[in-house]
């Protein structure tokens, strides 16, 4: 029993987790011809929340046809409860030596959990700024680019779409730039 619990709490190796992620693409196609993607939910939420008088045309469509995507997001929250609370890994993420060193150099301690306490500590105003800027860029960029990691990197590449290859390369160029240059600068300034 404890062995089973230990197993359920421990992380999956990439060669198990990766295929399980990839299977989402045919699963959603089979369930109802749905293209796997998550960021479109942000658009649907805007379409639901914005009052008609100030709604840009981009949000004028029948979001009810896209309810499946909102349900999927609801499922993601449930998944977070199951895997991140009930069966949370009690160990810190097992980073490579180099990765652990880099994280420490950023002034962040490697503790159990998915996001370091230093980046979720809302008593620090700099954390508000970091989370807000990050969210803003994610929301704007995913809609401008027409998708996120799931829509382009997983679904788009799986179905051999050239635009998705351009988007995925751009995701990585932006991410490499921000993780290596912007974040260290930000962490140094916020102290």
């Amino acid at each position: 029993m404890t062995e089973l619990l230990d197993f359920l709490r421990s992380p999956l190796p990439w060669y198990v987790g990766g295929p399980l992620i990839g299977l989402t693409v045919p699963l959603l196609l089979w369930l109802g011809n749905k293209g796997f993607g998550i960021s479109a939910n942000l658009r649907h939420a805007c379409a639901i929340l914005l009052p008609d008088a100030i709604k840009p045309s981009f949000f004028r469509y029948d979001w009810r046809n896209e309810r499946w995507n909102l349900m999927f997001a609801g499922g993601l929250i449930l998944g977070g409860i199951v895997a991140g609370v009930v069966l949370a890994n009690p160990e810190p993420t097992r980073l490579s030596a180099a990765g652990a060193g880099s994280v420490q150099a950023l002034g962040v301690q490697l503790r159990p959990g998915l996001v370091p306490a230093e980046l979720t500590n809302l008593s620090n105003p700099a954390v508000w700024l970091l989370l807000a800027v990050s969210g803003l860029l994610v929301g704007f960029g995913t809609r401008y680019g027409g998708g996120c990691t799931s829509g382009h990197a997983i679904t788009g590449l799986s179905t051999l779409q050239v635009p998705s290859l351009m988007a995925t390369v751009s995701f990585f160029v932006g991410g490499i730039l921000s993780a290596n240059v912007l974040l260290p600068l930000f962490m140094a300034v916020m102290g």
Partner: protein
Amino acid sequence: MTRTSQIPGVHTEPASSARTVTGLLVYLFAGLYFGVVLVKSEAASWYRIQEMFRFESFQMFGLIGSAVVTGMITTMLLRRSGLNSLDGQTIRVTDKEKGWRRYVFGGLTFGVGWGLAGVCPGPIFTLLGAGIWPMLLVLAFALLGTYLYGAFKDRLPH
């Protein structure tokens, strides 16, 4: 792929509200599955994302790479099988719009955001479920970003 004819008696439009609800419930479970995998494979871990963008481990590259290869093979097999989706439609993949500007500029913008707080849209929801409440702030600003795109869409190169 040739379009197979519809099965008699199977309607592509939602037949009744009760059926729609059970039909939608399936996606809740699909999301639950994906959320669990995101956490268990550590794709939702800020630490892993930093490690990836610094090329300090193979973990995330193996994860994304094997996901793409699996998706490619299984989607091809599904389409070749001639199987219909559960609601009786021919399985088809919608092609992404042509062009390059939006993918490069939008992609870069998203990438910079992803590298900072280590969040892409899926993990925002999953981390919220895991009780990381500051993700509400990320979500609120992601909605603002989405709104700003909608408001300025016509002035941006696509």
